C-alpha cells in the first residue's frame, strides 16, 4: 500500500514536470489526463471514494475534452500535422 502510494505520487510529479517541459501541446494534454487518472487512484487510497468518482469523470474526462476541443479550434493539431507531413516527406 505504501509502495503503491509512493509510486503514484512519483508518477504524478514526473508527469507534471513533463507537461511543463514538453513542446507539443497534444502530448501535454495527454500527460495531464494521465496525471488526473493517477490522482483518482490516490483518492481511493486516501479513503475518499466520492472524490475518486468525481475526479475520474471530471479530471480525466471533461476537463481534458474541453482542452482538446479548444486546441482543435485553434488549429494547433491540424497545422502541426501538416508541418510534420511536410518535414517527413520532403
Amino acid at each position, binding site marked *: 500500500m505504501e509502495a503503491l502510494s509512493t509510486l503514484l505520487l512519483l508518477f504524478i*510529479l514526473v508527469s*507534471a514536470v513533463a*507537461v511543463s517541459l514538453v513542446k507539443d501541446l497534444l502530448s501535454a494534454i495527454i500527460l*495531464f489526463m494521465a496525471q488526473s487518472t493517477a490522482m483518482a487512484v490516490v483518492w481511493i487510497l*486516501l*479513503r*475518499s471514494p466520492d472524490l475518486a468518482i468525481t475526479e475520474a469523470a*471530471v479530471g480525466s474526462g471533461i476537463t481534458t475534452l*474541453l482542452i482538446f476541443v479548444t486546441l482543435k479550434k485553434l488549429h494547433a493539431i491540424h497545422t502541426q500535422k501538416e508541418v510534420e507531413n511536410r518535414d517527413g516527406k520532403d
Partner: protein
Amino acid sequence: MLSKLMGHSEEIAALILFGIGFTNLLLNRNMMKKIIGFSMMDSAIYLFLASYGYIDGRVAPIIEDASAPLEVSAYVNPLPAGLVLTGIVVSVSVTAIMLALTLRLYKRYHTLDIDAIAILAREADPE
C-alpha cells in the same frame, strides 16, 4: 530528517506539484500551458487538504449498519472530502471560462503567446 520527510510524503508531493503548477502558470508563455498549470495547482491543493483528512487504519465515512452502535474512531475525517468535492466540480467551470477567453483572444490575435498578444494589443490600442 529522512523519516520526518517520509512521514509527510503526501503533503510534500502536493506542495511540489503546487510549485510546478505555479511555475508553469507564471513563466510559461503559452496560454494553454498556463491553463494546465492552473489546473495542476488546483489538484495540488485538493491533495493537500484531503491528505489531512486521512487517518491510518480507518475506513471511508460510510456507515454500513445503522443499527450497530456507532464507533466514531472507525471513520476518517469527512470534512476535507466534503470541501474538496465541490471544489473539483467548480474548478472545471473555471477552466472552461479560461479556455473560452483564450479562444476569443486567439480569434482576434492569431497567437497563443502572451507576450505577442500584449504587443499586438498595445499596438492596436496605444492608450
